[in-house]
């Protein structure tokens, strides 16, 4: 399709309580820069149920306009309802570009929407810019398990769409909420939603593992030696209010559930602080956490590749280092 405006859209995914997922708000930061270069407005698109909190957040973090689709059928994400809503909006307003957070849902929705609109989609981007000569978005993304980076353009189709990794961009400071709010009534018939959630089986340990939204993550790898080896990892995580992550080696050994796995076949994370304990730093693990602001590695092997990407690397036995570190944190926070 043809673009009707020069506007850049950011799809702001919502949680079931109507708040915005971090990545949607993060993407308003590069969105502002790109909309500026493309000479259009920055528009946040919020779909969900009772989403006032998400609309407010988008407005406070730089959106010029917020388009809202609110309805009970959007309370829980479904591919069909969200695709219908988003495609209807795109066809009506004709943005030139659109950013979608590369969460599980974003990567489920993005290809469905771009295919229905017959346009290009760049996957899981880690850098965004506007190509000087053509004015197209220059989407940069890792491929080949992080071994290669590619910069991709979508010159002849609109909107140009990309999914963007959580944690790569930083939220701007909240300002005054002054976006124009546009409410759109789009309702989807139950019959057009072809999937149904039958049940949610929570993690065995009863906790939510929200790695993608976490500010601090403490991860354990094969070096923790067994399920009980996660105890000092968990203790530090508790002291810091952090989420527990893991390498695939630890997950495959059955020491911790797969929902904790960080990396190519696990979650992609971008916390402020990532502490890797007994993790060697294989490229498939690094692919999921290299976007962290600060990386700390604790490993007894001074040659471990994790030290190449760590901001702070402690060469030592994690079972000796972690308890002391945990105590220090507790003392400081007492």
């Amino acid at each position, binding site marked *: 399709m043809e673009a009707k405006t020069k506007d850049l859209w950011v799809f702001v995914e919502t949680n079931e309580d109507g708040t915005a997922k971090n990545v949607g708000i993060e993407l308003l930061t590069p969105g502002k820069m790109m909309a500026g270069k493309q000479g259009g407005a920055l528009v946040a698109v919020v779909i969900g149920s009772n989403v006032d909190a998400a609309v407010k957040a988008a407005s406070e973090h730089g959106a010029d306009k917020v388009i809202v689709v609110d309805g009970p059928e959007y309370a829980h994400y479904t591919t069909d309802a969200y695709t219908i809503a988003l495609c209807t909006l795109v066809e009506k307003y004709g943005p030139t570009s659109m950013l979608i957070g590369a969460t599980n849902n974003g990567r489920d929705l993005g290809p*469905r929407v771009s*295919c229905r609109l017959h346009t290009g989609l760049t996957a899981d981007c880690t850098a965004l810019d506007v190509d000087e000569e053509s004015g197209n978005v220059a989407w940069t993304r890792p491929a080949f398990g992080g071994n290669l980076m590619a910069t991709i*353009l979508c010159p002849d189709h609109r909107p140009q769409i990309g999914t963007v990794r959580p944690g790569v961009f930083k939220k701007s400071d909240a300002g005054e909420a002054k976006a124009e709010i546009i409410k759109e009534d789009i309702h989807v018939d139950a019959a057009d939603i072809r*999937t149904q959630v039958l049940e949610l089986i929570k993690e065995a340990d009863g906790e939510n593992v929200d790695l993608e939204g976490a500010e601090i993550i403490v991860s354990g790898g094969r070096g923790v030696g067994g399920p009980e080896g996660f105890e000092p990892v968990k203790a530090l995580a508790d002291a810091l209010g952090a989420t527990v992550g893991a390498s695939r080696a630890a997950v495959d050994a059955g020491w911790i559930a797969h929902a904790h796995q960080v990396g190519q076949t696990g979650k992609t994370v971008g916390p*402020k602080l990532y502490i890797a304990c007994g993790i060697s730093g294989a490229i498939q693990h690094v692919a999921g956490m290299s976007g962290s602001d600060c990386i700390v590695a604790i490993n007894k092997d001074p040659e471990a590749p994790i030290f190449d990407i760590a901001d702070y690397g402690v060469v030592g036995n994690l079972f000796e280092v972690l308890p002391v570190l945990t105590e220090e944190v507790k003392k400081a926070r007492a």
Partner: protein
Amino acid sequence: MNMLVCVKQVPDTTEIKIDPVKNTLIREGVPSIVNPFDGYALEAAARIKDKDPSAKIVVLSMGPEQAKAALKECLAIAADKAYLVSDRAFGGSDTLATSYIISETIKKVEELEGKFDVIFCGKQAIDGDTAQVGPEIAEHLNYPQVTYGLEAEVDGDVIKVKKEVEEGVEVIAAKMPAVVTFTKPAWDPRYPTIKRKMAANRAEIPTLTAADLPTIDLTHAGLKGSPTKVKKTFVPQKKTGGVKIKEETAEDSAKKLFQLLSDASII
């Protein structure tokens, strides 16, 4: 139960090395393998067949003639039938074009094998890494989709999929025909038996070309039919290591780390 599994042959990206002079990927000598996620999709189909031996598993790959090696491996593991779709006109396809060609091929294969109840894909291919082809096939065929599947079970006209989500595992029901993409489950896929391996080696794998796909619109295939264009590729810059801490004792190291992190206002 008639199942199709889409399989891509990929270079084993864990074996890829970087040419330190040219700063490019060295692909020579890197073994080609069945995309691991497609192996999980095949295993999910095989588990359905374990319960219902009358079920059929067909595997389909788009790629060069060499991709038949990947298809043979799938035949050796669990598949009953294999097809390759290959044409020069398909080279350079992005995910929109790839999924279009595959969905057109599915229509052709269905004339020969009957309509498929489910189409299984891997979550993503470990080379392109986009995770887009599965959902795009679903859209081209106008089928429902479930992504991040761990396990699937047939219940009447519905496929029930255990899907990995942030909070744990969701059980999702989708009306068939449906597309499901699979991620890594807790178990390992089965190995081929010697008997199946020998049969797979002898198997004839038909190659379909553009000429066999009467409804395909070639302006939507290949490099020209692809909306996304790779402008450049480069090897990512390695971050250089930061501060190394190795004091006399682990206790001192831990204290120093804490000091550095709090001085930098990180904790």
